[in-house]
């Protein structure tokens, strides 16, 4: 597993000096990060530490104030005008986003579309695939998350766990190179967490590159190649799950954070 830290491979995504400010608050303060193909990175940290903001910056849902984003080696997404960073126009950003799947804490399924409609929507509208092909992709993805029998119902009838699995299928239907999970189980009842973890696990086993923000330490430990701890807008520690959870990297702050969780 250490191979992912190997610097002679090209990172899939590479962030450098990312700064994101909200008025007086600096949510992300100069973060740098590289994620290699196939790597599973878990980001943990107290709430308000900037984890979600960082994740959202990766697929341009947040417009950063400073820093660079490299995707497959190319600097992407921003241009500088009057000394300020500006997000590129949609024709540049949208194809980039299409390569990065995102799963939200609150699912954000499209309530007016059936389960199948939700999963088809990306291939159909964004990739402009013929309906039959989009449908087949969607059916495959629903089979993968184990919800083939729910294809014709509306999201309102699903449980939280089922909704999140549909959301994962919707992201996967775009055949993304990178998956971002923003606290995918935080809005779920405890008994529904397992099915979503299992789905993410299956993806991990298939070699999907993923960045996961979570508060579930057991999950982080089981899945991660690397764990990063974020606080006050920056990473203060990182390591393998073993290093991290067994001796907390010798960091008192992490120790107290983990002890409060477990």
């Amino acid at each position, binding site marked *: 597993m250490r191979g992912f830290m190997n610097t002679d491979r090209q990172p899939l995504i590479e962030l450098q000096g990312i700064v994101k400010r909200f008025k007086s608050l600096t949510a992300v303060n100069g973060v740098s990060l590289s994620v290699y193909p196939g790597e599973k990175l878990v980001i943990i940290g107290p709430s308000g530490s900037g984890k979600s903001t960082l994740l959202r910056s990766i697929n341009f849902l947040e417009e950063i104030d400073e820093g660079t984003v490299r995707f497959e080696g190319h600097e992407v997404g921003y241009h500088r005008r009057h000394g300020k960073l500006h997000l590129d126009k949609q024709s540049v950003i949208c194809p980039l986003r*299409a390569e990065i799947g995102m799963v939200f804490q609150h699912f*954000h399924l*499209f*309530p*007016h579309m059936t389960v199948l409609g939700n999963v088809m929507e990306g291939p159909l509208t964004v990739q402009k695939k013929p309906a039959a092909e989009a449908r087949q992709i969607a059916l495959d993805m629903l089979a993968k998350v184990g919800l083939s029998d729910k294809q014709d119902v509306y*999201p309102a*009838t699903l449980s939280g766990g089922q909704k999140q699995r549909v959301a994962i299928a919707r992201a996967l239907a775009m055949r993304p190179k990178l998956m971002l999970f923003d606290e995918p189980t935080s809005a779920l009842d405890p008994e529904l967490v397992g099915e979503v973890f299992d789905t993410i696990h299956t993806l991990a086993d298939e070699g999907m590159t993923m960045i996961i923000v979570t508060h579930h330490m057991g999950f982080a430990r089981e899945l991660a190649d690397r764990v990063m701890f974020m606080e006050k807008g920056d990473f203060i520690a990182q390591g393998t799950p073993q290093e991290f959870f067994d001796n907390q990297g010798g960091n008192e702050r992490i120790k107290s954070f983990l002890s409060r969780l477990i």
Partner: protein
Amino acid sequence: MTLFSKPSGRVVIATLLFLWALALPFAACAAPVDPDQVFKNASDIMAQGDLSAAVAELQKIPKPAKGEDGEAYARSRMQIARLEFSLGEMEKASAAAKDVLALYPDNSEAKNFAASVAAARQPGYVTFFKDCLRFLPSLLKGAVTTLLLVVGTMLISPLGGLLIALGRISAFRPVSALCWFVIWFFRGTPLLLQLFFIYYGLPSLGITLPPATAAIIGLGLNYSAYLGEIIRGGIQSIDHGQMEAAKAIGMTYRQAMRRVIIPQTYKRLMPPIGNEFIALIKDTALVSTIAMVELMRSADQLFNTYFNVTALVLAALVYLAFTTLFTFIFQRIEYRAGIYEHR
């Protein structure tokens, strides 16, 4: 007796004239009645307010003998009929009209009068329904115009409203400022004023529009402004996460609006838009001021012609029928639009 001993010719003539004048009323008693005098007397009596006495006076004109002219008789009996009608004596009124018809079977005045006496003696609802049938054709013509105006505005204003709403939330300042101005102006001035401006004001700028076009433009703009704000509220009420989820799978702003955001507003927009359209049905009455004959104008014309309130009642019923119909349609659409929320 010098006066008598030598009577002059002039004095004799004057005396004779005087005696004749004194005898005149007595002579009249014996002579046949003078119809003109009777009518004059009757109208004097009527002027004093005693209708029964006027009837008695008019009765003095006798039925003409065979071959005699019956014009005065017919006239007097018609007047009696009207007086009795005013007195509420329907039997007598109708009898008087029949007297005339016995003599002149083709007298249209008497015929019409007999018919209206008969109508007056009908129960109220029969009269009402007969009036309804009488007014309905021209009212329905007006109603069709109203319906066309309503449907036309219903087709134009949601599209106009959507454009205004999207313009308002646009990040491009000039567009959002323009849309703000349109809303500000059309919501801030009376619809009546806008219609006047389009129909009477634009010709001075060299643009002359037929009333129907002016009406549709006026209603369309006004309702687009109102719906614009409603639709903007609807769009902004959709959870922000929906836009993010749409963007996250690579959609452009337009695709996200068209496929994800706007379809979700339909259900929640139906109640306020339904409300606006119900108001619209009644607001179309305002276009009667720019020379359009729609439902309200037709009712008004009938009312002024026949002085019959039934025309107005009927117009109210047609408006109610329209609003009820559209309320029902909007309820169905709202139900259909929200079907995905049903568990």
